[in-house]
């Protein structure tokens, strides 16, 4: 460990929903990761990843070029990227991976980037913060456990893995092979347990939140119906909170509960927290510091249990 306690530095790619709807995810990630020896440096001038559902559906070429521009910004900083959203991972990691391995795609992208004086070189890697937290090469479960000052004892917490971090697993490359299990993974449950909480399994936990692929915008009732199915399964296990690693899933579960109440007449009142927010809480950050009051569904019942 260096004198400052910082072992790793990453360019922090924010995306859209974390900084613009759940800023606590951004502040918690920066502070919590710093305590764990990882510094997240702002990636100046980054844009939307771009949204893989919307942009990917319209024109893959623009999707590649736009994601490549974000990658080049990090290449210019000579830093690997860390990000907090599965959707962003899909764009940024996957485009990086495809451009590294397909010369035809890389040439096409560089043809366009030349117009804006940029060149994609393929010199950096992309990581999700969940992956950094789980992999002991960077942080690891033990180190997280040691950093906890306010264990979330007694809280029953379920995990929503989301889709685009690990699926399709045949295209993904994780150092921790357990992360490639997309049928019944438990690595996130290990992270939850490290915070002192009780991880809870529930029926069909790997099901999608329903928001992706542009479906939330195209047919909100259809998207919410998928979310509602997950909420029914979660309710059966009487969980205190749901944790996720994707702000878009979080939006769908959090605001989605309000929309579900309006459209289907059912309410769940299930607090939904990004793992970064949970980690911040367990490391002693206050709910105010985490902006938990910005959540559509009150986190109070959960907070009463753990504070």
């Amino acid at each position: 460990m260096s004198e400052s306690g910082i072992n790793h530095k990453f360019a922090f790619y924010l995306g859209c929903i974390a900084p613009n709807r759940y800023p606590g995810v951004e502040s918690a990630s920066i502070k919590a990761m710093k305590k764990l020896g990882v510094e997240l440096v702002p990636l100046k001038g980054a844009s939307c990843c771009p949204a893989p559902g919307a942009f990917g559906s319209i024109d893959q070429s623009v999707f590649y070029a736009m994601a490549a521009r974000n990658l080049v910004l990090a290449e210019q900083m000579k830093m690997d990227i860390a990000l907090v959203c599965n959707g962003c991972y899909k764009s940024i990691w996957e485009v990086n991976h495809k451009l590294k391995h397909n010369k035809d795609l890389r040439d096409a992208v560089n043809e366009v980037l030349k117009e804006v004086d940029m060149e994609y070189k393929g010199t950096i890697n992309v990581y999700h913060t969940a992956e950094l937290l789980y992999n002991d090469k960077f942080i690891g479960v033990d180190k997280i456990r040691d950093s906890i000052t306010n264990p979330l004892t007694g809280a029953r917490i379920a995990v929503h893995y989301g889709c685009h971090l690990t699926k399709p697993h045949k295209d993904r490359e994780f150092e921790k092979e357990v992360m490639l299990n997309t049928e019944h993974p438990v690595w996130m449950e290990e992270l939850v347990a490290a915070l002192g909480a009780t991880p809870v399994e529930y029926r069909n936990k790997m099901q999608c939140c329903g928001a992706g692929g542009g479906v939330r915008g195209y047919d909100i009732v259809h998207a919410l119906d998928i979310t509602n199915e997950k909420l029914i399964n979660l309710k059966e296990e009487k969980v205190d909170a749901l944790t996720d690693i994707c702000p878009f899933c979080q939006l769908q579960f959090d605001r989605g509960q309000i929309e579900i109440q309006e459209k289907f007449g059912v309410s769940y009142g299930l607090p939904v927290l990004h793992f970064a927010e949970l980690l911040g809480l367990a490391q002693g950050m206050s709910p105010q510091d985490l902006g938990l009051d910005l959540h559509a569904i009150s986190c109070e019942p959960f907070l009463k249990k753990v504070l």
Partner: protein
Amino acid sequence: MARTKGYPEALEKKLHEQRFFREDSNPEFSKKVKTLSRTIPHMCYQCGTCTGSCPSAPRSTYRIRKFMRRVVLGLENEALTDPDLWLCTTCYSCSDRCPRDILPTDVIMTMRNLAFQRDIIPVNFLKTVTAIYASGHGVPNNDVNRAARERLGLTRDPPTTHMYPEYMPAIRKIIDHYKLKANADRIIKEREG
């Protein structure tokens, strides 16, 4: 030429026609989807694992297996004009489980790209493009959030294109290279006036 195996020639011809071609079948479509999706849709043997894994299937008429068949048969119009094309949440469960190692999700995405080339696209997809063209973000900042960020010790605008708008011209140039903004504006105007 002497035939050593198979049905009589006339029957073979009849079966061949029944098997592969309908009047509205376009073999070029199958080839195009295969090239652009970078996966192998022609390997599909219609087992239905994809539809069985699909979160959209139980609550709609969307059947990913049917779309896979349409690709193999070259049924371009039938595939691209079906509104169910837009119900895939891109969860990749089908792609994870496909026993033929196909990525049906990427086949859907390719068909959506081809549909867009014919102006078939729901407007919400285009509005994400116009939002990003305007600010760099699909979900932009707002005043409530700016105040919250300040309270959390963050900058009012995140250090993205929001704080550094000087990065916007390059983004617009990339989008304009593909004439995407112009096309999005035109289609939104046609739909919404």
